[in-house]
């Protein structure tokens, strides 16, 4: 399996490192450069300067010749895809990564030992050669398996890619041309209209009601106006720049291309993301640690017995062969496959729950996660403006914002509401796109501005029939919204045919609407607007604004019939009708509401000890409101500002330690030193970062990692991708996510639901626990596999267990039970405990080795040896005769070896007995492994508490037994694998030891439960 992430970058750089010594420095500097903010200056220049800079003309555009020249100079206007790793490199990474290295070293040692034997002996035993071949085969097969597994997920990835080529409308030599977006060059004059994708970074030269959706770049959920004026020094916030790959929502604009391809803002972020070096996954680190332990044990054993065999008088060569043999015997051949299968199973299980894991190792990462940095827009929220509150009849009403309309409803009977709804429906240019009648209202596509569509949907939901209403109230005049008026107005016929008055409806910025109103409708009655009501309005406005919502005011007026008779010509340019002294109806406020499942999911994360940080490009007020809404800032927790407001003191006098929560603005973040940043992250449990740039998101993630946290980042926009990449696990959104973010992520939420992360955490934690059990189970049988060889060397008995039988255990009978432990259910509520501390809670620790090797493994070895001695004794070789017999036993020319009874044996005859012993030892290991797998089901609980509901495990028990019986009794096995049929009584030799294992471990766990924190827990709880 690949212990590097499957991002393609790393290999590319390492190759470069080797090739050119200078390059890494340059690359490093590049990255640092990219981490800085965007160095755009065009927004501050005048249009003429921009034209001059790019050699273009404001009317004619570029000449074709120049365009061609620039195209050659700059290359096509497309993002360089991250250098894709060649398939063979990916394959090799699977073959030589992490755990496989251990097996490869084992295989090489085997071949080495065989070479030594072949050089020194006439008839070398083939064992080492076979073992080497099998080890290589295991690595290659598992490598192929995980390679195809990951190839499968990357295929799903590819299906996300949008293959439709983009078109762009450019003006060259004064003519409008529709060209492929890739051919756009800097200096081109480009026209965009609503629905287009911006083909490159544009400096806007003229715009008509143009709005762009920057959410994938900045995280702002509302479309932004574009106009030729420079409104902000920050290029991301100024209005006269439109960014590559954002969408133009409505209106038209014309602009000069200022940069293309990778030099665009979006391109820089994408390059930054693909240029980031990601660390190892936590599981890769754990496996590395495990390899260290195993290698340590192997080398220790090997060296000790090397010295011992020299002391015992073996030759140097023999001792070296023993050394290699012992080291290789310590390699758990089957574990690589087991771990891979366990991770794959979990990955599949997660994919079913809508978490697609791009690389296997990331499966566990969510389980170790201690901090989640979540983007707001689209992840926590629905990325859709929705009417959240209304204020009418001097009261704030709550609208239903849930996705499935399960929330609270409000009183719709008030006449004020009817009037308000009518205004909202009529003074609204948004409309449903055609042929969507079958879809639920909230899912329908709307043409128009986000807030207008919010109103449209709200009215359609609560009153219905907006279309009919509009037909009945024909529009006769309209003044669209503009930034000087800050209102929108239209005049309609009334639906009452007898009433020939015209209805004037208006919506806009609340204070402007209020200024134009003299009366206010309360409970359907018009009342004069007095100070008291004005104050009520102010309070409501402030309260809704404080919730981070965008507030609109509504008013109407019925124009007197005598002045405006039917057929009156309304002139919207030179307004010939009153736009003041209207009747105020109420306020409606909109927000991009949180997804329904998010608050619950955040709560679960919190109880699982995971810190959830919001990192968004949106405004602090909105961010804070959503944070409060979803529980990222929990009820009762205050920020410094809240405390200051409550106590009525300046912010500077509040002790920052008193505030658990904080909202940090991107511009403040810029000025923080690293220490301050650490301090901030350490001392606040609930943090919201607002107005952050992509680079700052990256800094936040790095800050968390510096404090030792394992960080998950969720996000959907391009602006999130550097952070996604840097995070220990990046989680992208499958539906709304941009391609760049999906590329950078390790995991994709297919349903865009933050709650799926909780599933991921749960599965990740479970697989970590279960991998421990699986490894404990697999490692245990290492001891009964090694000890026979050790005794063979020290006391010179015939070999009790051969290489083939060892492989039959590791790659045969142990497999299914070990894998079945991955299906084990959790022992306690894993979502109620703290995330593991990567420094302390290791996958494989000394205690696990102590239990597996020192205790259970030893009992198993005794069971095996007992079976061995039984068979030898029953065939005539009593234990006393066996000790020291090895040299004669293995001498091919000695065909009259005497047993304890004086019978004489040929080489072949006694070898059959020896191989029968191997078979019996093998069967005994299967028998003791029955108990071991039951014991390994739990780490703390008793089996009687846990139950035997794991059907795969029960199947595994039967399967290993059947396999053992098959290997022993199948005709032909004596020739094929040198395994011989056992007499039935020999199956029972290991039973007492199997029983002992069960009883011993149950007692151990009982003490463990009775004395938490006691000696037994300290020494044996793994």
């Amino acid at each position: 399996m690949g212990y590097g992430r499957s991002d393609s970058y790393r290999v590319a750089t390492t190759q470069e490192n080797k090739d050119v010594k200078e390059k890494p420095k340059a690359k490093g500097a590049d990255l640092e450069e990219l981490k800085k903010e965007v160095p755009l200056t065009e927004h501050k220049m005048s249009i003429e300067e921009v034209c001059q800079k790019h050699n273009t003309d404001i009317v004619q555009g570029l000449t074709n010749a120049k365009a061609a020249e620039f195209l050659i100079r700059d290359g096509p206007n497309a993002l360089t895809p991250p250098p894709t790793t060649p398939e063979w490199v990916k394959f090799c990474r699977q073959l030589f990564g992490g755990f496989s290295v251990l097996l490869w070293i084992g295989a090489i040692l085997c071949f080495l030992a065989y070479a030594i034997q072949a050089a020194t002996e006439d008839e070398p035993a083939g064992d080492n050669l076979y073992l080497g071949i099998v080890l290589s085969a295991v690595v290659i097969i598992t490598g192929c398996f995980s390679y195809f597994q990951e190839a499968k997920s990357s295929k799903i990835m590819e299906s996300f890619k949008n293959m439709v080529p983009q078109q762009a409308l450019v003006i060259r030599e004064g003519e409008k041309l529709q060209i492929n977006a890739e051919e756009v060059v800097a200096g081109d004059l480009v026209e965009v209209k609503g629905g287009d994708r911006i083909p490159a970074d544009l400096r806007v030269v003229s715009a008509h009601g143009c709005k762009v959706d920057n959410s994938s770049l900045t995280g702002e959920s509302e479309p932004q106006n574009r106009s030729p004026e420079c409104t902000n020094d920050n290029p991301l916030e100024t209005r006269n720049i439109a960014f590559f790959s954002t969408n133009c929502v409505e209106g038209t604009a014309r602009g000069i291309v200022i940069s293309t391809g990778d030099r665009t803002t979006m391109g820089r972020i994408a390059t930054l993301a693909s240029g980031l070096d990601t660390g190892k996954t936590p599981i890769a680190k754990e496996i590395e640690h495990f390899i260290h332990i195993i290698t340590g044990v192997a080398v220790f054993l090997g060296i000790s017995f090397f010295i011992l065999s020299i002391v015992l008088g073996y030759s140097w060569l023999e001792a070296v062969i023993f050394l290699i043999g012992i080291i290789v015997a310590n390699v758990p051949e089957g574990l690589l496959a087991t771990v891979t299968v366990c991770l794959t199973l979990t990955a599949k299980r997660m994919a079913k729950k809508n978490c697609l894991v791009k690389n296997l190792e990331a499966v566990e990462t969510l389980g170790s996660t201690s901090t989640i940095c979540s983007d707001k827009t689209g992840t926590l929220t629905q990325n859709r403006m929705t009417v959240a509150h209304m204020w009418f009849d001097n009261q704030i009403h709550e609208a239903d914002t849930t996705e499935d309309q399960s929330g609270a409803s409000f009183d719709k009977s008030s006449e004020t509401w009817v009037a308000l709804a009518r205004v909202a429906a009529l003074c609204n240019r948004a409309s449903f796109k055609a042929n969507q009648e079958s879809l639920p209202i909230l899912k329908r596509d709307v043409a128009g501005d986000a807030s207008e569509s919010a109103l449209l949907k709200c009215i359609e939901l609560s009153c219905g029939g907006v279309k009919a209403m509009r037909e009945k109230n024909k529009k006769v005049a309209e003044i669209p919204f503009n930034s000087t008026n800050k209102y929108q107005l239209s005049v309609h016929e009334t639906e009452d045919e007898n009433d020939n008055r015209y209805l004037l409806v208006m919506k806009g910025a609340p204070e402007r609407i209020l200024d134009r109103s003299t009366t206010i409708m309360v409970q359907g009655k018009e009342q004069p607007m007095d100070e008291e009501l004005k104050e009520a309005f102010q309070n409501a406005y402030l309260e809704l604004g404080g919730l981070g919502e965008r507030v609109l005011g509504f008013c109407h007026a019925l124009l007197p019939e005598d002045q405006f008779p039917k057929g009156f010509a309304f002139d919207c340019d030179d307004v010939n009708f009153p736009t003041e002294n209207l009747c105020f109806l109420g306020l409606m406020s909109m927000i991009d509401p949180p997804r329904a499942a998010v608050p619950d999911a955040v709560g679960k994360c919190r109880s699982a000890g995971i810190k959830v940080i919001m990192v968004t490009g949106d405004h602090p007020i909105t961010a804070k409101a959503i944070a409060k809404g979803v529980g990222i800032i929990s009820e009762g927790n205050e920020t410094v500002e809240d405390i200051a407001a409550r106590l009525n003191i300046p912010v500077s006098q509040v002790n920052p330690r008193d505030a658990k929560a904080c909202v940090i603005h991107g511009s403040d973040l810029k000025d923080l030193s690293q220490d301050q940043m650490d301090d901030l992250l350490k001392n606040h449990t609930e943090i919201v970062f607002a107005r952050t740039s992509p680079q700052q998101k990256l800094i936040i993630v790095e800050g968390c990692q510096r404090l030792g946290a394992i960080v998950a980042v969720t996000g959907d926009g391009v602006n999130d991708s550097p952070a996604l990449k840097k995070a220990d696990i990046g989680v992208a959104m499958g539906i709304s996510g941009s391609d760049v973010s999906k590329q950078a992520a390790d995991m994709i939420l297919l349903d865009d639901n933050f709650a799926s992360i909780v599933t991921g955490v749960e599965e990740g934690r479970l697989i970590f626990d279960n991998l421990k059990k699986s490894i404990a189970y697999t490692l245990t049988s290492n001891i009964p596999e090694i000890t026979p060889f050790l005794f063979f060397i020290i006391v010179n008995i015939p070999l009790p267990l051969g290489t083939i039988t060892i492989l039959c255990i590791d790659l045969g009978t142990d497999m299914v039970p070990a894998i079945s432990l991955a299906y084990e259910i959790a022992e306690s509520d894993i979502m109620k405990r703290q995330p593991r501390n990567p420094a302390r809670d290791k996958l494989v620790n000394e205690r696990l080795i102590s239990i597996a090797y020192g205790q259970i493994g030893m009992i198993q070895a005794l069971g095996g040896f007992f079976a061995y001695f039984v068979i030898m004794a029953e065939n005539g070789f009593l234990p006393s005769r066996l000790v020291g017999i090895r040299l004669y036993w293995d001498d091919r020319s000695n065909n009259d070896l005497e047993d304890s009874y004086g019978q004489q044996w040929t080489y072949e005859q006694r070898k059959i007995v020896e191989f029968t012993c191997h078979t019996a030892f093998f069967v005994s290991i299967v028998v003791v492994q029955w108990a071991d797998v039951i014991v390994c089901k739990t780490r703390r609980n008793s089996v009687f508490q846990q139950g035997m509901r794991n059907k795969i495990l029960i199947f595994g028990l039967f399967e290993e037994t059947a396999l053992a019986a098959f290997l022993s009794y199948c005709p032909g096995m004596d020739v094929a694998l040198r395994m011989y049929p056992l007499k039935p009584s020999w199956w029972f030799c290991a039973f007492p030891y199997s029983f002992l294992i069960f009883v011993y471990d149950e007692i151990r766990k009982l003490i463990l439960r009775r004395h938490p924190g006691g000696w037994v827990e300290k020494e044996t709880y793994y």
Partner: protein
Amino acid sequence: MAKEDDERKPKSAPWTEFFWNPRTHEVMGRTASSWGLIILFYLVFYTFLAGMFVLTMYVMLCTIDEYKPTYQDRLAIPGLMIRPKGELMEIIYNIEDTESWDKYIQKLDNFLAPYNDSVQAQKNDVCTPDSFFYQEDSGEVRNNPKRSCQFNRTMLGSCSGLGSESDVRTYGYGTGQPCIFIKLNRVIGMLPGKGQAPYVSCGPKNQDTDKIGELEYFPTNGSYNFMYYPFYGIRAQVNYSQPLVAVKFTNITYNTDVNVECKIISDTITEYSERDKFAGRVSFRLRINKNI
């Protein structure tokens, strides 16, 4: 088994602290008492395991018969073996080079010493030839020690190594007519034939047909007399003398490898194992060099 604290230690600690940490008085990450406890635990644990193992072994050994092994199914066809054994079943020497065959003489002298007539007469009985010498136990009462029949060295004739002529005394090695002794592996209770006594028949292997020359067998016919069977195991039949057959190569071709295979011909041992080249037969290489 290192305690957790050692992982919490700052990374800057020198690695020697792993072996001796002066601040916490830890040796290899454990304090003395911690080491004491864990060693004590393992001591007790392994003592218990050893006890359990000894117990099960004791129970098992109690079920084992002292005089006859529980299973003999792997010994259905007794093996054949030669003396002198040589290296890898090869007997190679040079007639002129005394030292090259002297080692065989030494080995054979030692091998045949227990068969000296005086020794046999002292320890063993004279039995009735051509019939099995049964000495069964009567129920629980053991009929021990069991007697054995004499196999006298003199029965081996010119291969007995007894005599003054150098030809006989050197078992024919000095004259290029070597004797090879063939014995049938001992198997408790085995009866090697029914009516006809089993005998050894040697012949050339591969293409060595004409090189082998004539053969002479001792005792006559090269047979194993029934009176030496059945064998009751060395515990019951302490002085058992394993019967021998000597084969003398009287006319072997010199200076070439001669591959010989000897088989036991018996009416009970009829099939030979494909895999086991020494069950019921034995093959060896003979090469006698002579300077021309």
